[in-house]
């Protein structure tokens, strides 16, 4: 079978708005000509006639322990989605469900790329005034890392930046508490030494620009930010929480008086592009780098637009042979 005609497996049961919003997102993808395989409980998807379906009798909840859930719920929509990729029924998979369980099912069923020590979650961070986001990895897969893993994250992040955002020579920063090389935890200091070497930079056509700080997450002079999964997750959630609080405060101000409302309506056309840049639905999700098949995780609150974008990205990366590009760089 022509691999381009293979579908993207979509976990219909994952996410706060599943299955209805997930199905709507899948329908948008099909309308755009992207083949989809909807995987879910028969009660949720048996009435769908315009999209191929695969039934699964179990669902992994958002708060379940990832490894245990994946091992026990063999007939869950997540595990079946990963198996569809493993068995050649699907090109790629996406889920808006339990991130850890998505990683565990992809790792255990699809497997790691040879040479990859640990897969990492790469999350796009919007950059104001620039079309392409920065990429933060690891944003939560590996709470504890060793310095060599961070170098591998940097390599994978560089390949991803080039494949997904056409970044010619990705600039890679190491997240620390100061720009000077001597700043940071023992892990960061050791990783700096390794990242400063040329071999890996040549291999992945990336450029290490040294330490960067938390304030640089949205800095347009960086493309890839590397850190351990614990720090990355804290940084990501801090950014999300701050953005939410500021947006909430602005909306309160805009509705605080008739004059403010009038001013807000005048500003609205100028604010819309900014909103579009910051809207997580525009990006569609994070990718699990290091897996032998494109696997994407969308935010739990994803609506149809985010699901469509995740499906579309997963499809394009698969067609463009992203995994093969990672294999070529990681292969030693």
């Amino acid at each position, binding site marked *: 079978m022509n691999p381009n005609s293979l579908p993207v497996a979509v976990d219909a049961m994952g996410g706060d708005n599943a299955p209805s919003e997930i199905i709507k997102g899948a329908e948008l993808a099909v309308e755009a000509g992207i083949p989809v395989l909807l995987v879910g409980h028969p009660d949720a998807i048996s009435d769908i006639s315009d999209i191929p379906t695969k039934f699964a009798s179990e669902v992994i909840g958002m708060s379940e322990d990832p*490894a245990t859930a994946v*091992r026990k719920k063999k007939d869950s929509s997540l595990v079946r989605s990963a198996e569809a990729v493993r068995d050649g029924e699907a090109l790629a998979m996406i889920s808006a469900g339990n991130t850890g369980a998505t990683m565990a099912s992809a*790792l*255990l069923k699809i497997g790691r790329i*040879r*040479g990859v020590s640990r897969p990492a979650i790469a999350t796009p961070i919007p950059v104001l005034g620039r079309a392409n986001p920065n990429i933060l990895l690891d944003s939560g897969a590996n709470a504890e890392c060793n310095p060599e893993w961070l170098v591998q994250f940097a390599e994978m992040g560089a390949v991803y930046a080039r494949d997904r955002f056409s970044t010619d020579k990705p600039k890679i920063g190491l997240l620390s508490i100061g720009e000077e090389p001597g700043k940071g935890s023992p892990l960061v200091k050791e990783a700096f030494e390794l990242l400063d070497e040329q071999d890996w930079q040549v291999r992945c056509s990336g450029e290490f620009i040294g330490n960067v700080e938390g304030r640089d997450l949205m800095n347009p002079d960086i493309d890839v930010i590397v850190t351990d999964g614990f720090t990355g997750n804290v940084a990501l959630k801090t950014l999300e929480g701050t953005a939410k609080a500021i947006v909430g405060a602005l909306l309160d101000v805009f509705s605080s008086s008739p004059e403010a409302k009038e001013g807000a309506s005048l500003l609205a056309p100028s604010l819309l592009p900014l909103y579009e840049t910051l809207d997580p639905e525009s990006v569609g999700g994070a990718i699990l780098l290091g897996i032998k098949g494109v696997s994407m995780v969308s935010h739990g609150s994803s609506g149809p637009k985010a699901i469509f974008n995740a499906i579309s990205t997963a499809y394009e990366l698969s067609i463009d042979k992203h995994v093969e590009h990672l294999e070529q760089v990681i292969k030693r």
Partner: protein
Amino acid sequence: MQGDPLGRDEILKLVKDRLGEILEVEPSSIQEGDSFRDDLDADSLALIELVEAIEEELSERSIDFRIDDEDLEDLKSVRDAVDYVSSRLG
């Protein structure tokens, strides 16, 4: 249908082959007495990958077999794993 039970040598080969794939080392370099952590540098995630791989391999041979997650922490070495699988299949 239940397939033919495996002998201990076959189980040892299965464990070494799968472990070799996961750790990216030659299966022949793995010894039965090797400790997962101390000798093979295999962490808990590698152990879960091994368990999944063994279960899948046995299910392909129509052998109904499952390793209890509670038993995982008792498996410290290649020998422990082989003994465990042997006793469960026996």
